[in-house]
């Protein structure tokens, strides 16, 4: 939950019993969905699982809408497929489906790990990765996982549909570049990890009443035959207004050996390359720095181990965040 709630007067929050939408549409094609959005001219909104969206409306963080447009019945968007060298995830695919998909577990491990710690099972059974991305939180778990995999999103609106890099979907905390009153995020995709490639995700969560991670990080590494790093991607959040790509750390790694020392150096670079902040009741800047310093080397080591062993070294059962 974002911080705005704190500034609302108690009485305002508490009057939560209100109608969040009047009409509920489940169109059966992308075109029909776009047409409906157009018809409502800004008074309708796309709903994924609704697990964040509906709460935000009820708690007064977003205005109610006249209509919800639910893509759940659009054929094909409920699938995970291999297409054109990508793993493609439809927008109605839930977190639960992702964490059980063998292809994603094998070739997008950090995404399976990150979706596995979102909410609880009831939320993961309904919530979607597309919704997580659309929510545009700086540390959405699924988003951090997908960013490390160099994910892309497909957006459809009246002008047609197009793919764009995941980073371009974020404008600020909770602010998406995709206008959910006019456009539909239809699919997400990433290139599966191949030979000598691996990925890993880690986050630190408080046991107290904070719904978002203290810090989350993911990495994707590719090694060459000599086990030197040929490419690296590291994502961290929250580390700024949008999900953060730790470019300084990535640079340190490329062409270097996949060694503990190198990972530590990269983590130092990650710390100096970000502007971490303290957020009330969630984490101090110092703690977040310490987590990157002490935990990112482990994340990198795990990704590298997976690259070498071509297996799921260190993969726990879909975690359900009970660590």
């Amino acid at each position, binding site marked *: 939950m974002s911080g705005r709630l704190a500034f609302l007067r108690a009485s305002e929050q*508490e009057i939560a019993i209100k109608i969040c*939408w009047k009409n509920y549409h489940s169109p059966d094609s992308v075109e029909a969905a776009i047409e409906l959005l157009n018809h409502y001219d800004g008074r309708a909104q796309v709903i994924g699982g609704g697990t964040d969206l509906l709460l935000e409306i009820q708690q007064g963080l977003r205005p109610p809408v006249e209509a919800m447009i639910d893509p759940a019945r659009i054929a094909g968007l409920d699938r995970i497929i291999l297409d054109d060298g990508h793993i493609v995830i439809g927008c109605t695919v839930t977190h639960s489906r992702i964490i059980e998909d063998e292809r994603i577990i094998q070739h997008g491990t950090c995404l399976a790990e990150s979706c596995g710690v979102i909410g609880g099972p*009831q939320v993961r059974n309904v919530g979607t990765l597309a919704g997580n991305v659309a929510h545009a939180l700086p540390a959405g778990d699924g988003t951090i996982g997908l960013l490390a995999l160099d994910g892309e999103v497909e957006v459809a609106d009246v002008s047609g549909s197009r793919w764009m890099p995941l980073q371009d979907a974020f404008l600020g905390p909770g602010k998406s570049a995709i206008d959910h009153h006019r456009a539909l995020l239809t699919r997400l995709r990433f290139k599966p990890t191949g030979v000598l490639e691996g990925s890993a995700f880690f986050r630190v969560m408080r046991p*107290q009443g904070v719904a978002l991670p203290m810090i989350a990080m993911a990495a994707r590494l590719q090694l060459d035959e000599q086990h030197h790093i040929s490419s690296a991607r590291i994502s961290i959040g929250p580390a700024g207004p949008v999900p953060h790509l730790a470019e300084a750390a990535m640079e340190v790694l490329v062409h270097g050996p996949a060694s503990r020392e190198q990972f530590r150096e990269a983590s130092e670079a990650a710390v100096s390359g970000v502007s971490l902040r303290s957020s009330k009741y969630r984490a101090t800047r110092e703690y977040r720095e310490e987590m990157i310093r002490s935990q990112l080397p482990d994340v990198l080591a795990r990704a590298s181990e997976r690259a070498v062993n071509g297996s799921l070294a260190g993969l726990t059962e879909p975690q359900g965040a*009970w660590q």
Partner: protein
Amino acid sequence: MSRLQLTVNGQAVDLDVPESRYLSAVLREDLRLTGTKIGCNEAECGICTVLVDGTPVNSCIYPAFKARGAHVETIESLSRGEKLHPLQQAFLDHGAVQCGICTPGLIMTAKALLDTKNSRNEAVTTDAIKIALKDSYCRCTGYQSVIHAIQQAAGQDVPPYIPKTRSPGLAVGQARPNPDALAKITGRARFSDDYHFPGMLHARTLRAGRPHARIRSIDTKAACALPGVHAVLTHEDVPGRNLHGLVTVDWPVLCADKVRYTGDAVAIVAADSEEIASQALELICVDYEELPAVSDAIEALDPQSPVLHEGRPDGNLLKHIKVVKGDIETGFAEADIVVDRSYRTPSTEHMFLEPECAIGIPAGYNPANYGGPCDPAAARGETAIHDKTSIYVGSQIPYLDRDQVAASLGVEPDSIRVVATLMGGGFGGKEDVAGQIHVALLAEASQHPVKMLYSRQESLLFHPKRHATLIRIRTGATREGKLTAVQATLYGDGGAYASLSDKVLTRATTHASGPYDVPHVKVDCFAVYTNNVPCGAFRGFGVSQSCFAVESNMDILAEQLGLDALEFRRMNALDVGSVTCTGQVMRESVGLNECINKIDEDMRSDAFHWTWEEGTSRFAWGLAVGYKNTGLGGGAPDKASAEVEIRLDEQNEPRAEVRTSSAEMGQGLPAVLAACATEELGIPLRHVNVLLGDTDYCPDGGPTTASRQTFVSGNAARLAAGAVVQKLTPTAAELLACEPADVLFDQGIFTQAQAEAGGQTKSLAEVVRRAAEAGTQARASYEYWAPKTQPLGTGGDMHFAFGFCAQAVLCEVEMGTGKVHVRKVIAAHDVGRAINPLTLEGQIEGGIVMCMGYALTEHFIQEQAEPWSTVMSRYKMPSIKHTPEIISHIVEDATSTGPYGAKGVGELPSIPTSAAITNAIYRATGVRVMSLPVDQDELLMAMRSGAAEVEMGWGDQSPIPAVTLGGEA
């Protein structure tokens, strides 16, 4: 309105409903499948879980039209006739059902897990259970029994965990499920919100939304004019006393001149629907003059601070509570070593999973007049005629509700009736009046039944919390390890109204030297009014707070003295002959040493180490002991009445009913009362019914608080049963042709004392029948008075019994992140006598896990008297993933006045766990936590910097302020 077609529990359903509906509303309101419960409306607690096409979802935020065409399964579908689903049977067997409000959600979530694992031929591991139920909360059980039950249902050989206790009698000492558990596992159990009276309106409350302000005017014209609104009431419409309160009557029913906290009630509305009532609230105009607020207990005592209750001679000081024993100067002069520290404990929230709900029925209500069926023979419920103004509510104190409603309506208590519904958890949070007076006023004003259901968010804002405290404590001991002196000063933040602050903080004060024999004690406690949410009763009742300080100091002392932590406590433990800090001589039933010995043996059974490393974690054991009074004590008259009646059923078998207005909130009182009746009457448990809390049918059991009901109502039931036997004895004598004095009664059989073996006997049934023929009803009441106690400061027995306990906790601290996990708890509790070991174990496990939350997760945060913890997602209680292995030892050091020797246990388990955890953290890391709950961020940074103490708990906004010992405020 639109057509919604779906399949519910195998039946096709075709409804015409608004598209804005949630699935939970379709199930509960349109289909009246009220087995699915609502706990938060924010996808947080999971008690609303149903299966949509086999997948668990939170129905409270699932749009109904998302489920179009789907197969929906609810708890009502699980049992087929009498045949229970294996999960239901297992929850029953393992005592995994307490208040029952979360049970449907737990069972449905578990069902999906078992179905999935079965279809994949995978094992149901403990990890898998913890993952699947991670967001399915239960506030009562502590989850160990839930895990075991699911394992049993999965076909594993996991018997119910029942601690070893003394050999049982006919019923006392036998492990049995609570009698109401069957209704709770099938979804038939009805809580207040599950009642739908014909003609019922829905009510809402306008709350202040500001911590301190003067009311200039209230304008309700626009709200009254809104179509669908039946009544809008303000302070001007309260015909009687516009105040309520359990000890001090200072809490406005509806604020007239001033509001003193954000949750204060200003106006109430009854309308055709909750939505209309909500709209009406927005149309009420209140003109406020904002006043400065005070949110800190020490600051509130500053003469410059704003005063909440003008005209009080002591300003914001609610009470200065004092305990003095011996001479404190002498005590410290005798000490070789003195430890002096300050601690802080947070305000916490009960988070019972059923938000408050009350229904008011106007006097003379006949459902037929509102188009509903009427059954003139019905005693209560939707079809009954209600002669009196009646309130249906799940409340801890039905009779005091009745009296307070009567006072505000300006009528005699006898003209009000309170009918207790099942209660979805209480833990002390349902003692103060919530909507009871409001619905009575609205029902009479509108002449309709009126339901007032609080949202979770409103519940958080409104009801009294656990007192936040600041405690400075100075403990002195000799080099040999004998305690010589304890001096402490406590500040307790009572919030805006008195509630039970006086009593709670008195308990914190009188327990502030711990369960130890300390010759010299001086404790000062300041109970203070602030503009925070009021604080009142919460399981542990002040002792949870002081125990954290006492037991932390004890650990520091043990280390400085170079003594074993257990041995040091044993050397000073209260025993028979000891004198408490209030001057009470302990004459019997002091099982503390036995508790310490039990955990000592168990903990050190294998190759024992206090601490070790594994990977990047450190493991360590921590200890704490505790004690808690049973009963009100302090000179308060403490009594309970019960009525027992025996009737013959169609098979001529005797059946008994025990009636008392004591409250069941999941703690298992019906099982205890039934056991007492069976023990006395010899009627099998299954033939004993317990009727609780209908003030027209059940005598007063007094408040359900202070761990007192097993003791007082248990005694009342036992003695009322005995009185029935007494009443039947002349009839038995007549049938046996002997003198009444020669009649013996045992296990349901009357015999003649002088009879030879094989002589004449008469069964209870025969005697009851004969008595009925002669016009004697087999019914008797008994008013049981607990042993007299003395007020604080007068010496003597302040309490008639104490429970004792010792707990050892194994913690893991992740050295990389500062995360703390509780892995194992070894507990020993002296309960006098285990009347029902199964429900007793439920109290122990649930209490321990609740206290884990106190140590690690829970803080009701307020900023300048404005709550920050306004939604459930901002207040996390322990979930199943936090559940440690709990090993439970029962000590039965009987108290002579308790029923079969029993003392109270409700609060005891949730007293020492927090200190045991922080003591373990210290052993693992060398860092001592001075403020709860533990903040892993602060802890890790302290470990990194080498700091010895952490002063900031999670949610704290400043370091612990300096506290001056003793003296005046």
